[in-house]
């Protein structure tokens, strides 16, 4: 696994600086909304057909979309997680095509789009340490770059629409097979109106050394972004995929409902890292699932900082014997936010192991919920399960709940479960402030310390970013 050889103490060096403490959601800016096509507001069969037509899709995909739309209409809204009653499906735009065509040079992008990514820092990151970058703006991937050497080795990294066009056999084989439309209402919605997202294919025996990054940006108001990602990693291969997301602050609501399916074949390993930082008017309702074959490894690193409400439970279906699944999760809920996040691990085969580590922080009336499911099927002998969820509550108004479900149908396994809830202690704050650290810096330090077991797993650049974001959030609600 790639790591930049820098002494450990440097990791937190740039992150916690007082200068960064004047709070502002840095990505809340918006650009004038220009587009080459926008589907009319609201959702109908016509909109679904329209999207498929514009993309000149094969017939089977159009049918898949229409069927999914029917399922969406029939499915109930989930009533067990975050409050979704404010979502107004008729008042959203479901498809916006921002540019005529995709480019592979930042300079070729329209000025306001280029500026957006400059401000977010994507081109800079690309230069430093990424093997490939994909930038989605509204409904389409507008920019893409990919390492030529990897291309020669047969690695595919492109947007999902291009994937469908150029590699229809692979797509048809895997698309919607792990997360079928009837899985849940938002999976059905995504299946009906999906656009953009990534298609990643790593052939046998190829280890992609540097991460591939996808960047998702919503700019328009009342918009729904429905990217669809499919990752297939063949025997003995490795890839690390990273995604980030931001949006402008509007008084109206937007919706982000993605579907991510990952197939990890024998002895392969996939790591999928998310740093979700939507503005607080975005509903983030995402279905993510991976399937592991024999001795394969799937690792989700899931960081949820933004959005009004998130419901997301990255899952690993441990199909092959000896395979391993891991979810490292961080959730931060500030004022008006509810992070309902967690993980699902399903053990189908013997000698499989799963590990869930969840750290949540709530502050200023925010609410975090850990929701997890571990299911061990009969015959999954000698499997092991480890679940640890820690919640940190920073003040009296904030709230944290834990919903750990375990369905164990096999006796010959080992299960470990730990859960803690702690309040940020006055004593610890006093200890730090008495050494000359301001209260908000001290809170930031303690919170960063609390999530350290997860941040240390994230590539350096992202852990710095994450620590910085958390510091921003911390200081923001103090003043």
């Amino acid at each position, binding site marked *: 696994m790639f790591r930049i050889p820098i002494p*450990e*103490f*440097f990791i*937190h*060096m740039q992150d*916690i600086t*007082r200068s960064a403490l004047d709070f502002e959601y840095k990505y809340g800016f918006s650009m004038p909304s220009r587009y080459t096509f926008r589907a009319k507001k609201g959702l109908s069969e016509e909109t679904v057909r329209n999207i498929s037509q514009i993309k000149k899709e094969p017939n089977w995909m159009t049918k898949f979309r229409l069927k999914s739309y029917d399922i969406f209409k029939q499915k109930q809204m989930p009533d067990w997680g975050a409050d979704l009653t404010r979502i107004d499906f008729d008042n959203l735009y479901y498809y916006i095509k921002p540019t005529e065509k995709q480019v592979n040079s930042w300079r070729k992008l329209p000025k306001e789009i280029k500026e957006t990514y400059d401000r977010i820092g994507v081109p800079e990151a690309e230069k430093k340490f990424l093997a490939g970058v994909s930038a989605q703006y509204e409904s389409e991937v507008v920019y893409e770059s990919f390492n030529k050497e990897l291309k020669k080795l047969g690695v595919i990294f492109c947007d999902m629409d291009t994937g469908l066009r150029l590699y229809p056999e692979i797509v048809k084989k895997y698309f919607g097979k792990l997360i079928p439309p009837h899985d849940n209402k938002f999976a059905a919605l995504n299946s009906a109106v999906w656009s953009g997202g990534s298609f990643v294919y790593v052939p046998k025996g190829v280890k992609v050394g540097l991460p591939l990054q996808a960047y998702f940006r919503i700019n328009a108001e009342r918009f729904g972004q429905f990217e669809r990602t499919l990752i297939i990693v063949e025997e003995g291969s490795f890839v690390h995929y990273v995604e980030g997301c931001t949006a402008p602050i509007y008084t109206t609501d937007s919706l982000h409902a993605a579907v991510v399916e990952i197939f990890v074949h024998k002895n392969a390993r996939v790591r999928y890292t998310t740093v979700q930082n939507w503005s607080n008017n975005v509903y983030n309702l995402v279905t993510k699932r991976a399937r592991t074959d024999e001795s394969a490894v799937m690792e989700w690193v899931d960081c949820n900082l933004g959005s009004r409400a998130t419901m997301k439970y990255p899952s690993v279906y441990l199909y092959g014997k000896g395979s391993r699944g891991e979810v490292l999760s961080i959730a931060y809920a500030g004022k008006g936010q509810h992070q309902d996040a967690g993980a699902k691990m399903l053990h189908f085969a013997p000698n499989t192991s799963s590990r869930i580590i969840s750290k949540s922080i709530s502050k200023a009336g925010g609410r975090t919920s850990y929701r997890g499911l571990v299911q061990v099927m009969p015959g999954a002998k000698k499997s092991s399960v480890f679940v640890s969820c820690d919640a940190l509550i920073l003040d009296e108004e904030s709230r944290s709940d834990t919903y750990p479900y375990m369905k164990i149908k096999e006796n010959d396994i080992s299960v470990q479960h730990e859960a803690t809830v702690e309040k940020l202690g*006055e*004593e*610890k704050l*006093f*200890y*730090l*402030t*008495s*050494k*000359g*650290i*301001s*209260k908000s*810096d*001290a809170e930031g*330090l*303690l919170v*960063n*310390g*609390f*999530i*350290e*077991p997860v941040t240390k797993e994230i590539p350096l650049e992202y852990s710095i970013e994450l620590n910085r974001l958390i510091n921003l959030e911390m200081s923001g609600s103090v003043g």
Partner: protein
Amino acid sequence: MLSVKNLTVKVGSKTILKDFNFKFKKGKVYALMGPNGSGKSTLAFVLAGHPTYKIDGGSLKFEARDIGGLSPDKRAKLGIFLSFQSPLALSGVNVFQLLRLALTKQKDPLALKKRIDKTAKKLGIKEELLNRSLNEGSSGGEKKKLEMLQAAILNPKLLIFDEIDTGVDIDALKKISQFLDETKSGKTYLIITHYNRILHYIKPDKVLVIMDGRLVKSGGAKLAEEIEKYGYEKINPKT
């Protein structure tokens, strides 16, 4: 440099410190002694600004400035340092991170790192302790040495050592006292202790005895020896 005038301190509705009066002078070593529960730690906490300890009367002046209403970090910035009796374990936070945030003036992290390493060596702190979560799984002696390390780097004017000698073995105590003695020039020390033990290594200019929240006696280094010999009960405020 520090003037405590008619200080009365409450925790909740309970009065712990009663009408405490004393003037601390720059560059002197003070020992504050007293039995358990007499209010020694309360004085330490109230000087550092612990929010639970409320000033109910009197005043605190540090270098002629009233500090009674200042937050702990502001007091630290003025040069007051409290070495904790039981330093708290901080998960995921190491001493470097703490000092980097506490030291606004030190801009260069590498130089700071060097200073920390050098001082740690002097104090006999193992290198791995510097990168580990602060005070987590450390022995009593290690914790106190880490407090000393912070004191040395932050370079305060007034250092309050709350029971620096409890939970510390004799070798660590020697090391700590030696270090304190070497670095005392120009600084004011307030050493809070039950026993005379540490005072064998670092000689106080003045010994204060506190009982039941009141300052009952003060005197020279000899007073500590008397306490060691006869115990607190024999201390008669009237003599």
